[in-house]
């Protein structure tokens, strides 16, 4: 190897064109340091750039950048589309006062009435009931999986929960329609089982797995050294969870709950199938109701493009969009506030 190097150098030096001014001091031959093909010195290569690593770096950066901004672009595009179809109409032609205060949703009457209150009440009551059911279930399951279960039990449970989270919503709707419906009729001795109660239970069961998964992640993010410290001070299992783990994980837990609320708000198919889809101000869990999302889904196909009805449905869409936005914002503010208080 070293012989080779010396050879290279000695054979290279005489090959230099005669008459070239001696740029390098003699005695310091510009040979390659590790043999092989002669290379330029490191300091002369400072401006070299294009090689495979550089190209890959550029490609990766461009792809990641596109992926990153596409999310923003899509959200903006969706909002612009919905706004174009409905916002101008909502602000100028629609009677917003009536829209928000009247329960009369009669879009196909001769003189159509567009009161969304019953739909809003439907969505709110179903989501509210769903959360009443899902939050305790999900937090309980997350605490059990994260803090108590070990080994195989834990892995099995996690897989099961993820499987539940991946169940298509039409399947849940089907369960509501064909299992919950007769069950409710029989258990409570009521004439119909497609009600707020039914949809709330179905939606709660649907939202619980995803909430469980996120809540469990939040619990898992609590460093084990906290648990160990508390245990070494004589805290019981429950005291550790109550006083150390849950407070440390509360941001993640709030996020999990809000995500569940968002899911409930936006869910369409299962609610459409289980709620009875009747325009009605629900006064008890045994009333049928109709959700905002289900209304859009079931009516948009029958409206003429650009008609008043069509635009009112888009107004419902804007309303849903805004509510979801506010929920997220609220979550964000809450989390930030918590951060500040803790520091």
């Amino acid at each position, binding site marked *: 190897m070293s012989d080779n190097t010396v050879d290279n150098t000695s054979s290279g030096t005489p090959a230099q064109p005669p008459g070239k001014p001696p740029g390098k001091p003699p005695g310091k031959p510009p040979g390659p340091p590790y043999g092989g093909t002669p290379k330029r010195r490191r300091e002369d290569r400072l401006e070299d750039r294009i090689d495979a690593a550089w190209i890959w770096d550029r490609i990766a950066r461009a792809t990641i950048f596109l992926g990153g901004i596409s999310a923003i672009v899509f959200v903006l595009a969706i909002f612009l589309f919905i706004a174009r179809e409905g916002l101008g109409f909502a602000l100028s032609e629609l009677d917003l006062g009536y829209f928000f205060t009247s329960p009369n949703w009669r879009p196909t009457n001769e003189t159509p009435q567009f009161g969304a209150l019953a739909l809003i009440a439907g969505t709110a009551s179903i989501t509210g009931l769903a959360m009443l059911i899902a939050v305790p279930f999900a937090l309980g399951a997350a605490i059990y999986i994260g803090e108590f279960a070990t080994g195989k039990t834990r892995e099995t449970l996690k897989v099961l929960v993820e499987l539940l989270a991946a169940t298509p919503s039409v399947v849940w709707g089907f369960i509501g329609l064909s299992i919950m419906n007769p069950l409710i009729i029989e258990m409570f001795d009521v004439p119909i089982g497609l009600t707020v109660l039914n949809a709330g239970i179905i939606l709660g069961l649907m939202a619980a797995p995803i909430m469980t998964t996120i809540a469990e992640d939040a619990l898992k993010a609590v460093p084990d*050294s906290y648990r160990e410290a508390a*245990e*070494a*001070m*004589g805290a019981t299992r429950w005291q550790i969870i109550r006083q150390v783990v849950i407070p440390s994980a509360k941001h993640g837990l709030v996020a999990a709950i809000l995500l569940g609320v968002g899911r409930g708000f936006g869910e369409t198919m299962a609610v459409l199938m289980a709620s009875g889809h009747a325009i009605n101000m629900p006064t008890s869990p045994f009333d049928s109701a109709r959700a905002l999302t289900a209304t859009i889904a079931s009516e948009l196909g029958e409206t003429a493009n650009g008609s008043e009805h069509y635009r009112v449905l888009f107004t419902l869409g804007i309303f849903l969009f805004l509510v979801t936005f506010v929920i997220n914002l609220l979550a964000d503010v809450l989390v930030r506030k918590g951060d500040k208080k803790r520091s």
Partner: protein
Amino acid sequence: MVSDTTSTAAATATGKAKAIQTRKLNLWYGSFQALFDVDIDVVQGKVTSLIGPSGCGKSTLLRSINRINERLGYVRTTGTIEVMGHNVLDPSVELTQLRRAAGMVFQRPNPLPLSIRDNLLFAYRLDRGGKGSRSDEDEVVEKALKEVLLWDQVKDRLLQKATELSLEEQQKLCIARLLPVKPSVLLMDEPCSALDPEATRAVEDLLWQLRGEYSILIVTHNMAQARRASDECIFMLMGKVVEHSATVEMFVTPKHQETADYLEGRFG
């Protein structure tokens, strides 16, 4: 069992009551045996340091005394461990009480993500089963912080989060939070290894002050620390106790070749 009682009797007779005493302590992690017939005696009111090469079982021994190693679930122990004369491996022992009697300080300072005040009151509140009156709690906090020489530094920011303190302050806080429940033994696993030399010195000085009221068993990798900050020294090797003697003796005239080799840095 018979030899136990005689040795305890002998100890009391010579006025050297034992804070911790293990006899034929064997410990397995699953099927891996980490401790072999460990017999140690930690004298009350003294600082005893536990030294030995990495992996020899120092932490294992320490963590079996307050039984915190049982949180692993696959640990099996035989033999006896007595803390202030009570066998803590007895099934009737209440773990929560044991852990208050034998407080533990960890390698990395691990204050809970609560305020300084709540950290100090954590064990206290667990012990009395709820919050105390404002004035009682204030008193407890002040006393504990003064005991670890931290009061002047933090008295104006007791509601600040403990995790924002410097590492030295955090480690002192971790010692302080054990004191309100009046432990008899403090178990420390390399409490200074995350600290700079100055902070190490400060914590050592603190240990020296706490000694007397508390019996301290401290694991350390730092020979200089063992030498200047302990009364007695236990040298372990591969899960066994090789030598236990007064620190001065061990460092000047070690009885075993392995001890001499280790102290001179020939292995570990």
